């Protein structure tokens, strides 16, 4: 038995070493940037980091402000782009970013991106508040239906996100949980590959299963209305434009409109494929199309 256990452990250790070498050589799992938490309780990235995306064909970078992508040369005539992993866009090279495509369409403006995966509506609002100091002409908040729900403690509790408690009207700041463990996991590429492909996938599948088993939750419009009302100040609606992904909930859009937000609803033609095969995020083509529609509609606001 002792011999068997020793052999198994030796083999596992060797397997891990070989796996790690293969994982690093072929970049089978992406590099993940380290995060910190700012004074407003928003998780963002530690500035000046670089890493490779899966497959190693392109690299991502975190700029001096702690957001992915390249900063504009100037902040004159500035338009900011705020969003979640769709804008963070690690899966595409920097040449496929919204700010690059929008700049091509509207060369008279400078575009600055501020994004992080999982950003909800309230966090996007707070990031926009911070960027107000740069006096942008417009702030584009790329949102999805779930971003509103994820902003409310009572609807979707997540201590890693800044959320709004609609019962006592307070904002609960995000916490950075087990960052050492996470960083260690990200450092071991092979273990991270196993974790993300088998454990996390399984968890996601289970969650989808339980979600489908549960009765459909009716649109939490009342709660979202409370959230929007509490955030509703003129400076937050005047120059902010919500960019909704295709097929967004029309009730939520109407609610935002009633609160004074300007909005753009993206429309994906049936014959166009904007996303990757096994990943809902936009491809370069998708980003280009999104930027085309956004620029066209943005021009109407500018005019």
């Amino acid at each position, binding site marked *: *038995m002792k*011999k*068997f256990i020793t*052999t*198994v452990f030796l*083999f596992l250790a*060797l*397997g891990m070493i*070989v796996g790690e070498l*293969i994982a690093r050589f072929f970049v089978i799992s992406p590099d993940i940037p380290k995060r910190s938490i700012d004074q407003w309780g928003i998780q963002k990235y530690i500035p000046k980091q670089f890493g490779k995306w899966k497959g190693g064909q392109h690299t991502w970078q975190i700029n001096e402000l702690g957001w992915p992508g390249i900063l504009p040369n100037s902040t004159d005539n500035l338009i900011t782009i705020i969003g979640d992993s769709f804008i963070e866009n690690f899966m595409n090279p920097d040449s496929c970013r919204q700010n690059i495509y929008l700049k091509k369409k509207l060369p008279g403006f400078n575009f600055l991106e501020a994004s992080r995966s999982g950003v909800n509506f309230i966090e996007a609002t707070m990031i926009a508040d911070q960027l107000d100091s740069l006096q942008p002409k417009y702030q584009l908040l790329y949102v999805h239906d779930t971003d509103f729900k994820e902003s409310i403690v009572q609807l979707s509790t997540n201590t890693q996100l800044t959320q709004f408690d609609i019962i006592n009207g307070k904002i609960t700041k995000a916490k950075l949980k087990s960052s050492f463990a996470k960083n260690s996991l990200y450092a071991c590429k092979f273990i991270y590959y196993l974790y993300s492909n*088998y*454990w996390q996938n*399984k968890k996601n599948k289970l969650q989808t299963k339980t979600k489908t088993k549960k009765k459909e939750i009716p649109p939490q419009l009342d709660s979202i209305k409370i959230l929007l009302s509490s955030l509703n100040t003129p400076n937050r609606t005047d120059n902010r434009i919500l960019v909704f992904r295709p097929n967004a909930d029309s009730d939520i859009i109407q609610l935002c409109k009633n609160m004074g937000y300007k909005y753009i609803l993206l429309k994906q033609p049936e014959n166009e494929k904007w996303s990757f095969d096994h990943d809902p995020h936009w491809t370069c083509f998708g980003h280009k199309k999104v930027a085309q529609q956004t620029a066209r509609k943005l021009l109407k606001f500018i005019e």
Partner: protein
Amino acid sequence: MLFNSVDFAIFLPLVFFLYWFVFPKKLKLQNLLIVLASYVFYGWWDWRFLSLIAFSTIVDYSIGRALARENGLNKRNMLLWTSILVNLGFLGFFKYYNFFLDSFTSAFSFFGQEISAHSLNIILPVGISFYTFQTLSYTIDVYRKQLEPTRDFIAFSAFVCFFPQLVAGPIERASHLLPQFYKKRVFDYSKAVDGMRQILWGLLKKIVIADNCAEYANEIFNNSGEYSGSTLLLGAFFFTFQIYGDFSGYSDIAIGTSRLFGFDLMKNFAFPYFSRDIAEFWRRWHISLSTWFRDYLYIPLGGSRCGTWMKIRNIFIIFLVSGFWHGANWTFLAWGALNAIYFLPLMISGKNRLNIDAAAKGKILPSFKEIFQIGSTFFLTVLAWVFFRAENVADALRYLINIFDTTLFSQPQIFPTTLMTLLALFVITEWLQREKNHGLEIYGNGLLKHRPIRWGAYIGIITIIFSFGGSQQEFIYFQF
């Protein structure tokens, strides 16, 4: 719980640790642990159906005890039939109720009589066909006085629900597996290592071969109207490897896992696609089921020691029942009937036992005659699997007709090069290993006697599993 899941990767070492380190000297506790672990393993899927296994265990244990006390033939017959009715009753209700109901209503409507019948929304308990046959083998062997009825309820429970083979076999005979629960198990290094190898080979078969073939087979079978004859033939070819990789992969993992716990399960597959005739194929495919039917159905019916018409009848009965065992659908009956038709000429001409040893025994390459024999047997098998995979008999017939149209010799519309390369490598390895117990059995000399090369091969296989593994799918035989 699926063998190819993270849950099982945690479950197995945990049970292994408890088995050998916490209860190493107490046989009863080890057996009890097996029962508990098996119930957790099964309950992971649906705990409600544990009651069926428990009930079946209690019934067959009690009948076994009663048979031990009873000498009168009538009472013994009654006890045997009670066991058969209870076990087959459950199986019949859960597996065949809706089938018979639908068939009756269809038959009545065919003759112009509309009858209203309500089919039930019945969930088929995973593995019911397997453990039902296993417990039946116990009662029948005790009835025949070929096996001493057990007094050890825990050992019997462990025999019924032994987790490695509970849901998809091999269907063990009580006379082979039950006595292993009475004896103290001693850890055997070489057995355990070989078990690990067999698990690894089983995982490769399931994750790389079966799951990848499944993607293409599903696409082609689900949209068969859109594809050329050559593509349809390729679809049937993919299903042929899917079902082999899936089921024999499960058996390999089951046998390998059992070996880690000091148990020997019977061989269930012996490289069946290298068979030179259909009779040989059936001696090498799902051996535990074929021999079960042989011993408990075919021989009692008279087997081959009777007149020609009786032989034909017996052959048809055994193949039809075998087909029906797989599922409540006319397609399985058609599959069984087709195999009976394949088998009959060999049986009648007395040539059904021509090929007993492995093909090209002791040689690397087969002769031209063997290549032809293997190729033609494989082709017949591929055609038969179309019935097994199709939704209904009409679909299967349409599929077969469409294979043999003018587009058969056109270039297939789907030709996954990576998968074809993997299949070629897989077939070559299995061919080289065909005289052994499984695809990764290593003994004797050769390069693999050196540990670095051996370990390199294992790591290579693991890398292939991670790199080319298909999307996780349930084992096909879970539904039988």
